[in-house]
């Protein structure tokens, strides 16, 4: 059981949780994640460690409510507990001094991008972060990213904040205006990582991406998280989650992520109906 110390809404459907996990707070490195089970019947869901405070013994998770487990998590209050938190999992991101590093976070991917930007900067790189969101209301962690980077470029699909357009446009402009960066790290929706990788491949810029396939155990035991990288089978939970973006089979990953769509929607819908019924029952005096 891990206590939730804070739960704050930071954007539409996006919450930041501060969770007591002293040991994980000490050990985790940038790029690692935890697996959470909300309650006794819960699914095991992987979530990146967005930040940690070893002195306070806490980790920070930034989670978008997209389905049953993440929506249920959003209803928890400080003082409530998560049934299970296991981590740190995955291999830490390989951090070295390369010169100029561009860190790209798309949507909820800004949360996992944050510790990477921090670590790259601490290693002596000049960090330019590109943050992408559909619209301003969905943009998260801009302040934190500014602190972790030398420069931040914001873009939104609808132009409500920063440049209008996709992160790939911002990256292409950056390359055109200022030349090639030495390294790119991208995390976010799979199509975004795919198009970033295509672009950087053209320019020959080394690029790492952080993959998020469906996972179960997170220790290399089930193989559910397997991805194809350079025509080899890899288990993202132990061999990754970071891989060379120029070698990843993104189309396969997109299909694998969608495998349980119908069942997930059913579970989410039933939960919403149950919640509605409960609040109705509470509203009607018996």
């Amino acid at each position, binding site marked *: 059981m891990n206590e939730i110390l804070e739960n704050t809404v930071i954007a539409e459907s996006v919450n930041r949780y501060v969770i007591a996990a002293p040991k994980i707070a000490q050990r985790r490195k940038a790029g690692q994640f935890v697996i959470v089970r909300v309650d006794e*019947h819960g*699914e095991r869901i992987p979530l990146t460690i967005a930040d940690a405070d070893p002195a306070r013994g806490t980790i920070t998770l930034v989670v978008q409510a997209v389905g049953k487990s993440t929506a249920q998590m959003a209803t928890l209050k400080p003082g409530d507990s998560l049934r*299970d938190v296991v*981590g740190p999992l995955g291999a830490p991101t390989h951090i070295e001094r390369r010169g100029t590093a561009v860190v790209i976070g798309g949507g909820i991917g800004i949360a996992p991008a944050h510790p990477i930007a921090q670590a790259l900067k601490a290693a002596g790189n000049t960090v330019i972060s590109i943050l992408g969101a559909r619209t301003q209301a969905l943009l998260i962690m801009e302040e934190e990213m500014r602190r972790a980077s030398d420069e931040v470029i914001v873009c939104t699909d609808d132009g409500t904040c920063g440049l209008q357009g996709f992160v790939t446009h911002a990256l292409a402009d950056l390359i055109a205006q200022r030349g090639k960066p030495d390294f790119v790290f991208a995390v976010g929706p799979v199509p975004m990582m795919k198009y970033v990788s295509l672009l950087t491949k053209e320019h020959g810029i080394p690029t790492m991406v952080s993959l998020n396939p469906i996972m179960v155990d997170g220790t290399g035991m089930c193989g559910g998280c397997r991805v194809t990288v350079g025509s080899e*089978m890899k288990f993202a939970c132990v061999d990754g989650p970071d891989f060379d973006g120029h070698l990843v089979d993104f189309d*396969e990953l997109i299909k694998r992520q969608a*495998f349980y769509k119908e069942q997930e929607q059913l579970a989410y819908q039933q939960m919403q109906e149950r919640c509605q019924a409960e609040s109705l029952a509470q509203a009607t005096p018996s």
Partner: protein
Amino acid sequence: MSDQLDPHEIERLRSLKPKERMQIPRQQMPEQAPDVRRANFREVPHGLPAMTAIVEANRCLACKKPACVEGCPVGIDIPGFVALIVQGDFEGAVRKVKETNMLPAICGRVCPQEAQCEALCVVGKRGDPVAIGRLERFVADWEREHGLVEPPPTGAPTGKSVGVVGSGPAGLTAAIDLRRLGHEVTIYEALHAPGGVLMYGIPEFRLPKSIVSAEVEVVQRMGVQIEYNYVIGQIETVDELLERHDAVFLGTGAGLPWFMNLPGENLNGVYSANEYLTRCNLMRAYEFPYSDTPIAASERVAVIGGGNVAMDVARTAARLGAKEVYLIYRRSEAEMPARIEEIHHAREEGIVFKLLHNPVRYIGDECGRVCQVECIRMELGEPDASGRRRPVPVEGSQFTIDVDTVVVAIGNGPNPLVPKTTAGLDVDARHGTVKTNLETMRTSKRGVFAGGDIAIGAATVILAMGHGRKAARSIDHFLRTGVWDVEKVE
């Protein structure tokens, strides 16, 4: 299950002559009918009623030199406990079993008795052997159902402490014996539940999880601490455990699933057996959406492999509602490593055996879900390294089977996480196992012991338990003497 004892009948049976005993037929366990059980996850056999157990026990000839004991990897005093059942003294019988085997309710259900004790039983030379496994199960269930389970006494505190990595049968057994010897024990378990394969692998219908939980509770009542969600190699290394503990036992099992490297293996609907079984057993996907973890809804499932794991998957798929379940195995039935009982149960449940077949590739639909498996026919050639005849493909015999789910159950290797993060721990390069002296269960690293599947590759519950016991004795020796380089421990 009937508990009623009939004293007259007990006396009559006891007075039988050996010849008459030999005439008693092997007693069967009542079980759920195949068409009924195919639709539920409850345990298949119900266990022997008390009087039936006594009848079965009377088939034993109480041999002076009991061959059966030789066949038992841990050497249970089989005629001893069977004789107590004959007298109706079930409590005495279970005590006797537990002198050597702390987890009889589990072993009675999952041990391959037909290849161990029962294979050597003298009665079996001329008929069916004594049903030793069923009797073992009976006494263990009787004890639990009567609330008589008592944790064994713990030894006087030694002030030493041992870290056990993994809560499978190897780790649990080592923990129990170490507590008996007075050492402090903490188990570190990667998952959120204990038991290893007993919990996440072997299905409910073969080993109810309540039984595994009951055994784990005993371990905890003995004062063993269990830290869940604790992945050694990530949160801490073995070297860090050695700073806190006087010795470490590795019981991390063989949990790394093998694939065959076939085209289409990453299509949706293609699972490893570990994933399929974990979703179903540990995460209870069969109760979805009451439990949150989904599993593929399937009509036609192909299971690749011929061992216990493949049988468990096939029977699980049937229970999850698949109409057709094919078991695709590259050799013939005679070479199947699965237990006879499992093969028999699978057949009864309508699993279709495609023997001497091997998959060559998987074909997907436009959404990326598997829709066909292409197979090739095989024939048996010369014996290979395992002594079994090597299957060779029949040129040009490819054909396809329509499926919507495939489960690859061709075996597992040890997970490299701990070996990779532990300096000075020698690993067998070919098998990935931790090099372990099987007399002393000691590894190449001072203070680190290993046992179970991590030491010998995927094997059996009883071997893992045997290793756990041996390791506990060896650890005790090390903690008392401080001597590491020994050839044998007594």
